[in-house]
């Protein structure tokens, strides 16, 4: 089993799940579940197997279009491995979260889910920029369908907005990639899309700056950072639960991954020049995202805006570009993967039970469903950065590292910690505490299926919070290799 096989298996499983619906309505989701659980164990096995001398857990090299220097290059280093692991694990969560939510076209739903995940795995492992771009597009289209077909009341608008934002920025990415390859060709006489060959390409400073900007915009749309974030609240709110889980838990990380893997290493001087504006956007995202979260009355929209706030820390940390901040950003990616997935799953569970996302119609849910209350409390507390949980390690390290670079911006971002307390506790108050709302009569609490997934994610956050060494050790050689400042 290697990265390529994993992608093929996910693609094939999607096709099988689609066809299987003809024989049994329940077959597609069981196929998804089993395939993803097996994939999780296989990725874990790769991790336990250890890396080779060059720090790779797996590598695939195949010619594809030799004439243009395009090949299938899939490298799995520590960073890729942990993100692929997160992808398949949250894939399991997504399937469980939508277990009983989807009422029609089960097969096609699971197919889109698996295909999105296949695209994401490709994005996290591709070391050929052309291939990377292909996967970048592959993960979008099925995601578009997930929102457009199985979404909520305003799904058409949301899906189109999501698609346009990512397509336009994807176009910038493509232009930047092609120009980079061309510049490299002019300098060396070799056409290549290989990431490793393109590293260190000599070019004019202004050009490098614009190319960097092209990559930057594409990835910051995905992250998303203010002011390119407005597709996210709509897409999240309208997506089915599995879609939100994947979107927040995994897809946003592709933006963060791109910043770490491509933007700074490919254009180190330009990125350094752009450090202050980028960190400023990060700090603004932290505070503005949190503030917008507070102003929402829709449970899911609130969580969506909180994602912007949390991912702002990643942007801040990446451009601080020192060991502390970058490792913090990595931990933050993983921690946010779990905490946001859990909160979206909770939002989905509430909507399925109450048929509303408006917090004004909730209230006092703790009395009706105490297990949900405890789970909500846990993830709300994780979201506000409680020490002992993964989010704290991520945010603290980012701020600690960013502080060495820019005190003022770090102080601005630190205000985000206060805002996080305001919106997180307000979420808890409006949905689970206060007087019992009559709408909540007779709702069922979490059963074993939902609870087990939630406990799994909670334990992951605790582990990351008190002993983040496994994650830090996976990414440390990678970020060192990327030329991070000490």
């Amino acid at each position: 089993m290697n990265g390529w096989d994993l992608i093929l298996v996910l693609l094939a499983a999607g096709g099988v799940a689609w066809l299987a619906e003809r024989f049994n309505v329940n077959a597609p989701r069981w196929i998804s579940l089993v395939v993803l659980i097996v994939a999780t164990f296989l990725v874990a096995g790769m991790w336990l197997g250890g890396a080779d001398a060059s720090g790779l857990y797996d590598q695939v090299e195949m010619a594809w279009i030799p004439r243009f220097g395009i090949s299938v290059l899939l490298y799995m280093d520590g960073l890729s491995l942990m993100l692929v692991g997160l992808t398949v694990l949250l894939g399991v969560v997504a399937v469980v979260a939508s277990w009983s939510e989807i009422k029609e076209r089960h097969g096609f739903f699971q197919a889109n889910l698996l295909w999105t995940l296949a695209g994401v795995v490709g994005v996290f492992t591709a070391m050929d920029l052309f291939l990377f771009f292909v996967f970048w597009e592959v993960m979008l289209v099925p995601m578009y369908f997930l929102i457009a077909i199985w979404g909520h009341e305003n799904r058409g608008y949301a899906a189109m907005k999501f698609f346009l934002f990512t397509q336009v920025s994807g176009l910038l990415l493509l232009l930047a990639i092609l120009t980079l390859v061309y510049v490299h060709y002019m300098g060396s006489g070799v056409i290549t899309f290989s990431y490793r060959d393109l590293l260190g390409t000599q070019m004019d400073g202004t050009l490098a700056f614009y190319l960097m900007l092209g990559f930057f915009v594409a990835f910051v749309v995905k992250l998303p950072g203010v002011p390119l974030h407005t597709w996210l609240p709509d897409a999240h709110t309208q997506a089915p639960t599995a879609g939100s889980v994947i979107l927040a838990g995994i897809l946003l990380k592709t933006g963060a991954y791109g910043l770490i893997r491509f933007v700074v290493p490919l254009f180190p001087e330009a990125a350094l020049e752009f450090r202050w504006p980028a960190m400023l956007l990060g700090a603004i995202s932290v505070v503005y995202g949190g503030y917008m979260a507070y102003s929402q009355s829709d449970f899911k929209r609130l969580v969506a805006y909180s994602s912007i706030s949390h991912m702002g820390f990643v942007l801040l940390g990446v451009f601080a570009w020192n060991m502390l901040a970058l490792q913090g950003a990595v931990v933050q990616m993983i921690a946010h993967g779990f905490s946001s997935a859990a909160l979206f799953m909770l939002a989905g569970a509430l909507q399925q039970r109450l048929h509303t996302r408006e917090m004004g119609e909730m209230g006092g849910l703790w009395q009706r469903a105490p297990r949900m209350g405890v789970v909500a409390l846990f993830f709300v507390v994780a979201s506000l950065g409680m020490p002992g949980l993964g989010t704290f390690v991520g945010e603290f390290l980012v701020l600690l590292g960013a502080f060495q670079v820019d005190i003022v911006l770090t102080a601005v971002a630190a205000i985000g910690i206060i805002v996080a307390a305001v919106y997180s506790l307000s979420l808890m108050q409006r949905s689970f505490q206060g007087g019992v709302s009559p709408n909540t009569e007779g709702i069922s609490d979490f059963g074993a299926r939902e609870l087990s997934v939630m406990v799994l994610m909670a334990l992951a956050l605790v582990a990351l919070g008190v002993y983040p060494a496994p994650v830090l050790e996976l990414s440390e050689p990678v970020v060192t290799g990327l030329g991070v400042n000490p």
Partner: protein
Amino acid sequence: MDLLWLIPTLPLVGFLILLVTEGRLPNMAVAVVGAGSVGLSALVALIAGIEFLEQGSAPFSQVLWQWMNVGGFTPNITLYLDGLSLVMTGVITGVGFLIHVYATGYMWEEGGYSRFFSYMNLFVFAMLMLVLGDNLLVLYLGWEGVGLCSYLLIGFFHDDPENGYAARKAFVVTRVGDTAMALGLFLLFRELGTLEIQSILTGANSVWAEGSMLCTAIALLLLGGAVGKSAQIPLQTWLPDAMAGPTPVSALIHAATMVTAGVYLIARMHDLFLLSPAAQLAVAIVGVATLFISSFTALVQTDIKRILAFSTMSQIGYMFMALGVGAWSAAIFHLMTHAFFKALLFLAAGSVILALHHEQNIFKMGGLWRKLPVPFWSMVIGSAALAALPLTSGFYSKDAILLTAWDSATGGVWFWTLAAVAAFMTTLYSARLIFVVFFGDMQKEPHDPSKINMWGVLVVLSVLSIAGGWFGLVPVGSVLPDGGLEAEHTGSIVWITAAVPIMGLLVGYLVFGRGLIDLDKLSDRSWARSLSRFWFGGWGFDTFYEAVLVKPFVSIANANKSDIVDAFYRGVVTTAQVLHRLSTRSQTGSLRWYAANMGAGLLVVLILVIIA
């Protein structure tokens, strides 16, 4: 002493047991787990403490594991026992255990019995991590953890939105301070490359000269965290509202332990404050301002728990002043005696409140002393210690603070005078509390639900409130710069200081006991009424914050609910749609229109060609 790790672990285990059983345990089992875990922890702490003192008070540390290792930042999870953390551990587990036992009776009839004790155990765990951590990051873990538990317990009865509001206010206001403190940690790490407390204390002395700007900045940022947690000006406004929590919570968190964390932090980081006289002076000024203002506020409150809340702020103000004038050991001494007598006062108040079916207004009480003898005598003893009447524990600790303030070079006579006025006021409001609640006409027939687990605790705490200060048992001499409570004070000031509370008692008796001044007539005067209203509202801080911070925050949030940034993208869409509509309009299908357009276009091209 190798069992040090058990001290915080036992309450954590208690919490976990109560969590996974999901409230299915019977009350009796919950009580055993909840109070028992803290009791065992207290026992271990006692053994460790005896061993520690026998071995000549040498600091002992126990590395549990390395928390993380990133780019030279390698905080360990390490427990550190020295005289200071021993006193704190003793207070937390000892007084904490007594309050847990009391709560097993107090909360018996309430719903959520198991949830209550799970939060309480989690709190004790976090508080122990705060004082035992040898690294500021571990301290910060405890610091945030106790804040969380405080939030959960203030809002324990969460069906009432007002409790929820009070809980969130407490968390958010303290978080403002916490954020300042976090920035202080970042700055410390940047300058010294470590967050280990002992390395910081030695490093600071070798890196900075006295009066260094950097050191002052760091000390002030830490002070920001301390004023938030300890409810000192300007972040004090959350504490009175925090009284929404059940009374044992107020006793444990908002009197005996958590609110003194700021005092602990400053005492722990004392070298930074010694290096920065400006920051140390700021500590003293914060303390003096708080103790003065809140002692007046306490005098006009009508809710028994709010009186005690303002009294707590005031007493912590004394501790801050003590730290500020260099009476380090006296501050910790007062922290300890205050934990005894304030816990006693809160629990006695709790018994009165319970006996009157959750009545908290002191003017609806009255004449209770015969019916509720144990709470009455507890209240008398606790108030005597609070007022620092001679021979009580509070006398020894507060006296040491006032006399050091007098002798200090920075504040001297000013600090002493303000603190002495506040000490007078303290006796006055204590006298008012006792006379109004326990004497006069009975307004409501109390039912006395007291069980042995409740009044037994009151008796133990009463003994501690009196005798807890006799021996000056605070082994902090080897930790703190003033070397313990050795300082001798002489001169007439000693007698004057001791006489202040007695004068207060006398005036209090005449005013509230004998009705020498007609208070109803006084409150008819407009100046008296507005003064009293000003004091009652806590000197306008809440109103100010409400107008300047909360209202704008909320109204801008409401106005921007649909995200102004998205307006730009919506604008792009609208423009595209308008252009689209305009260009569709040109498609009329009429041949004549097309021909005319073609002709016009041709003409334009021709003209352009000719001109060129």
